[in-house]
């Protein structure tokens, strides 16, 4: 994977999202910068509440209204700045150039409409055509995600399909307009292991065919290992480590990444009971001084608790960054 030679499809710079609630405000996405190239899969990993879905929603500009807003940064899709588009212009981008597979396949299809009408709706909006061709293109999309007997399934309601099948239909909707970038937000957590593996294989095949970039959100480092080229590790709204998957597994630079890898039995050689990281991530309301991971970190010292670590190269490697004082000290 020589991502360096390909052009970046998605370039995110200093992205910041602020959430304002009655109890106070906090920053669930705090200064993200990263890029995704054509044909590349990037994993976003982190514990629950670390801001993975917020990042995805921000990229789609679909943050919860009145609650969250983007306060800073830039998101470029194929060179086009998304954050300054009007809502109407953004609607033309959504589903057409950047698409998303939502977290829960069981509920992300509308129970009141047939599979076909939900796929055709996207096609009609972005690539209109005569009725018959819409139907055949919808069937093509179902074929692409390997739905058996698509001519019959297209007239089925979501309630008549199995969980794995529904997930495929959600995938079909996402790819139907041939987007350049797909964000998949934990698309397989509710599926059983074999279905999950099939789905991941399918995603990879689709990517090989279309060259789309995938942003894969998960809290399972095992999936990252098998699917992603690069990985962003998120903790409490920040990207604390990023780099090629191989390097990060071989040489995690951030103690949090190290701990996450240790929770995966097959990767750490720690068979048996699933390990979890002791302690809790900071609550959104907490005012953080110093490194946010310090209360749970085995290596934390006085500086960690008083001063936030800068983002630096890990091991002097230009592809691998982290924000940890230990990397600075090296």
């Amino acid at each position, binding site marked *: 994977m020589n991502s360096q030679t390909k052009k970046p499809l998605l370039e995110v710079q200093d992205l910041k999202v602020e959430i304002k609630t009655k109890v106070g405000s906090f920053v669930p996405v705090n200064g993200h910068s990263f890029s995704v190239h054509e044909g590349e899969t990037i994993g976003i990993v982190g514990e629950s509440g670390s801001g993975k879905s917020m990042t995805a929603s921000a990229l789609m500009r679909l943050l919860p209204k009145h609650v969250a807003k983007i306060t800073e940064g830039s998101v470029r899709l194929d060179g086009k700045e998304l954050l300054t588009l009007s809502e109407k212009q953004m609607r033309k981008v*959504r589903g057409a150039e950047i698409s998303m597979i*939502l977290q829960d396949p069981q509920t992300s*299809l*509308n129970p009141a409409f047939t599979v076909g009408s939900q796929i055709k*709706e996207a096609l009609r909006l972005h690539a209109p055509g005569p009725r018959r061709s819409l139907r055949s293109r919808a069937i093509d999309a179902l074929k692409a995600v390997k739905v058996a007997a698509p001519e019959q399934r297209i007239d089925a309601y979501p309630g008549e399909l199995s969980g794995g099948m529904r997930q495929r239909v959600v995938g079909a909707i996402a790819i139907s307009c041939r987007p350049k970038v797909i964000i998949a937000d934990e698309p397989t957590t509710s599926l059983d292991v074999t279905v999950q593996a099939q789905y991941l294989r399918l995603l990879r095949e689709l990517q090989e065919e279309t060259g789309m970039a995938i942003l894969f959100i998960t809290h399972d480092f095992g999936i990252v290992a098998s699917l992603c080229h690069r990985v962003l590790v998120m903790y409490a709204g920040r990207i604390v480590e990023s780099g090629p998957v191989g390097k990060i597994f071989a040489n995690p630079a951030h103690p949090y990444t190290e701990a996450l890898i240790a929770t995966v039995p097959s990767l750490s050689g720690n068979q048996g009971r699933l390990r979890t990281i002791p302690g809790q991530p900071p609550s959104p309301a907490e005012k953080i001084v110093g490194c946010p991971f310090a209360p749970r970190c085995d290596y934390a010292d006085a500086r960690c608790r008083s001063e936030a670590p800068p983002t630096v190269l890990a091991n002097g490697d230009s592809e691998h960054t982290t924000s940890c004082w230990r990397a600075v000290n090296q």
Partner: protein
Amino acid sequence: MLRHLLLRSGSSLFALLIISMIVFSLSQLSGNPVDALLPDDATQEQIDTFIRDWGLDQPLWKQYMTFLGNAMLGDFGTSLKWPGESAMGFVLDRMPATLKLGGLAILISVVIALPLGIAAAYTKGSITDNAAQLFALLGQSMPNFWLGIVLIWVFSVWLGWLPTSGTGSFAHLILPAIAIAWFQISALTRLTRSAMLEVLDAEYVKLARVKGVPEWLVICKHAFRNAAVVPLTYFGILAASILTGSVVIESVYSYPGMGWVAIEAIRGRDFPVIQAVILAYAVIYMLSNLLVDLLYVVVNPRMHHG
């Protein structure tokens, strides 16, 4: 699906049967039907013929069977208060007027309540939401006869825009329809609002946005289609309370529909008409519930296969 509808029709018929028994016992409960049904100065001969004609010398269950047989043919005897009129014929005569009024009331409540409920849910916590809630509260805290009188006072007496009472033109329908509808608007607005709030955060609503669907379609198509089941379920109750509302409001506006007939018949102890009007109301109620069941299937495709 078909089984479901058959089952519902069956239970409706059973309910009608029970109602017929109640209606039948009504004339028994109120003392000797001879006293109730014949004028005070009836001769002994008249009384005897009456007893024979009506089978009052027969055992009670036999009387009921006769009553039921006649009722199924729509024969409740002749009216006492309006001589020469068959009781059911008289009621049926007035039915279109009531259906027109009830239909308009339903139309008004749906046309106002659904958009209001949707807007309130969409703008939850905003001024629009609060105004909609206040409007709803207002309707639910006013008894409809009082609202009827207030409306007459404002729009007929004070502004002189609309007639105070009677029938004959569309203008005559407006005030009574509003008086009946407002309470329903309140209930329906709140129901729609809460049903919409439940679906607005659903993943499939988000998926619609992800696809690039325009916001108004996201709300009216993807969200409302799933929320619609709740107000629809209420529709049966809506039909019922609009029927009962018509009894009161038709009297307030001297609007000669079934409701007005019911009140007049009760006043005049006109038992044949009372029986006819109660059963007519019951049948309308059952039919509207059956209609709701049908609509329910249309709105809720999952039931095609249930």
